[in-house]
């Protein structure tokens, strides 16, 4: 039971958050529990792009997504979704958490797990109906998992579980997708399925920010890239930003002092 923490209210539609940007982060600093620290993130996502978030382990890639989604509190700064507060635009945001973040022994099958993506639309107290299950089934088809709809989720392979997570977010039919390491440890079939889904999303004019660890495929899969290592090193179109120089800055060891101070910040009140 994680107690509620005070979260700063995201700013409304003022000048720092352009309305055209699906996700606009202004001057955000995060230091929370044992999560990696993020310093002064300033970023406006371009609409309709597939964007990779790249950086070494512990660079704060997941933290960036979680902070944008209000799952971890920020120390300063603000986040806006489509130029508005996240609270108001929640319905337009889809989230694909890390596969390891849940207990897959939970008693549901793949279809029921995907239906959870529709729960908010169904609303308080109302039961799941046939049309919802049909929508969920369509999402399963999109990730090529229709044959596994009735299978208990613990009996799916890692890649299949990942596709269930993706289908659950697709069922929400959002405009902005935030995905945390969807390609981590998946089989070739799943990787292809995810890439196909991403392309489909892009064709529908949607935006996706994807935490990605495989530098080889960044240029092939994505339009833009965010290079992250505790701070934002560079962001923009892959061709311009994904350079040897920037990569060296991202992966070439942490800034010793920044790392030390970050460590102290997360340890505050815990010693």
């Amino acid at each position, binding site marked *: 039971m994680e107690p509620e923490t005070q979260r700063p209210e995201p700013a409304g539609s003022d000048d720092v958050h352009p309305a055209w940007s699906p996700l606009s982060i202004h001057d955000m600093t995060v230091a929370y529990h044992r999560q990696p620290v993020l310093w002064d993130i300033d970023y406006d996502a371009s609409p309709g792009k597939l964007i990779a978030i790249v950086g070494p382990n512990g660079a704060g890639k997941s933290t960036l997504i979680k902070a944008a989604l209000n799952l971890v509190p920020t120390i300063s700064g603000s986040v806006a979704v489509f130029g508005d507060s996240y609270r108001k635009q929640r319905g337009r945001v889809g989230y694909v958490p890390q596969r390891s973040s849940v207990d897959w022994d*939970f*008693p549901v099958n793949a279809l029921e797990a995907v239906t959870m993506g529709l729960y908010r639309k169904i609303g308080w107290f109302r039961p799941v109906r046939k049309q919802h299950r049909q929508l969920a089934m369509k999402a399963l088809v999109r990730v090529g998992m229709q044959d596994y709809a009735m299978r208990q989720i613990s009996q799916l392979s890692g890649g299949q579980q990942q596709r269930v997570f993706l289908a659950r977010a697709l069922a929400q039919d959002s405009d902005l997708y935030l995905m945390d390491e969807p390609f981590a440890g998946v089989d070739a079939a799943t990787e292809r399925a995810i890439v196909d889904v991403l392309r489909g999303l892009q064709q529908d004019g949607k935006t996706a920010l994807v935490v990605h660890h495989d530098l080889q495929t960044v240029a092939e899969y994505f339009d833009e890239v965010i290079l992250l290592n505790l701070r934002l090193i560079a962001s923009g179109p892959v061709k311009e930003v994904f350079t040897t120089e920037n990569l060296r800055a991202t992966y070439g060891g942490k800034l010793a002092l920044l790392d030390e101070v970050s460590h102290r910040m997360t340890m505050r*009140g815990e010693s």
Partner: protein
Amino acid sequence: MVIVFVFFLFVFPTTTFASDSNAILRVLTLQDYNTRVVLLGTMLLGVTSGIVGTFMLLRRQALIGDVVSHAALPGVAIAFLIGEAFSPGSGRSLHWLLVGAASTGLLAVVCVGIIRRFSVVKPDAALATVLGVFFGFGAVLFKTVQELPSGNQAGLQQFILGSASTMIAADVVMIAKAAAVVLVLSLLLLKELSILSFDEDFAAVQGWPVGLLDLGLTGLVVGITVIGLESVGILMVALLITPPTAARFWTDNFAKMTLVAALIGGASATTGSLLSAMVPKLAGGPTIVLAGTAFFILSMLFGTRRGIVHRWLQQIRNRRRIGRDDLVRAMYEIIEARLSPASDSSTGDSLPDCEIARDDIDPFSRQAVELAELFRHRSWPLRRVKQTVAVAEREGIIRMDSETGWRLTKAGATAARRAVRNHRLWEMYLISQAEIAPSHVDRDADNIEHILGPEIVEQLESLVASRVPRTSVPPSPHPV
């Protein structure tokens, strides 16, 4: 928990029904008004805690119930002492005592939350610490109460072991009200509580008030524990946890699991109270818990999803299938070598119409294989060969040709082709994709071919065997 239970078994000998020869019959036929009241009350309690327990267990909060039930004790004692201090005699009011129990129970949950939030103490240590402190405090206070002149008859010890037999109609009404609230809430919130339990972050991103839902769930746990405290005692936690744990052996569905847990909870409570009403000196609470444990053991053994017997039968069936596949594959390989003796069986079997071919036209059904050949081919123990052969004959896969010779039936030839095909597809995959030496792949494929489902075979086909027609068996990639 068990130690505490045994300890109190000695400290507070329980009062039980006097029994004569008629008593058991009277109990079983529900002739006593009292028995009916107790049964109805405990049954409702069992059903309700089964439901709440399911949510609690899936939310991975199982131990919160333990903390609440132990932490309720000091509350009972404090409420009694305060009541007695203001107006002697009023301390025994059940409602007042339950208010005390609920207060310290909730306080303990809050303490756990605070420790988790603001310190580096691990969650399990936080639970254990809070439980220990509150229960220790409760034990000290109970001793104090016992030494008071009014304390002896206060009957507070029933909050430890529970005494269902003293339940009165008013208690049942209270339990029924609580049960109604829990039933309505859990039906309404089935969807909300399932998403909260499965993926809290995802629920929060969707906009569900995760903290509020959690609070509500904790509230239900505290409520049901406190209400059950009088009749079941601090072992209430077992009534919360055991039914859903047992239910998990029967189903893979959230709603069904809740239902089965409710049934098991109700059945445990009913069985326990009946037993304790029939047998003198059997305390109500512990008997209910033991009945629940019996249901748990039964579920663990015979549950249709994950029960031990179920798994065991599945293993036997699997082993039999593997034996059969191995047998027909061996026969196939022997016949294959006979049909093309010169080559190293590299021609392959291309009989795409074998499915419709008549029994005696298929060369693989016309050839007889001697037991001795099988024995040589696979170097299996003779006993195993004979056993497998017997099973395969019963299943109509092979038939006897002579005293020691056997033939594949049409079904057998089909099964053999499928087994050999899967085996060779996997070998080809290992050689071409995983770059394993051809001389090594046979043993590896031996274990794998049996678990290849249709979807994996399909993938194998697209990966390695695009040139192999769907119905034919490719040649072996290595000398058989």
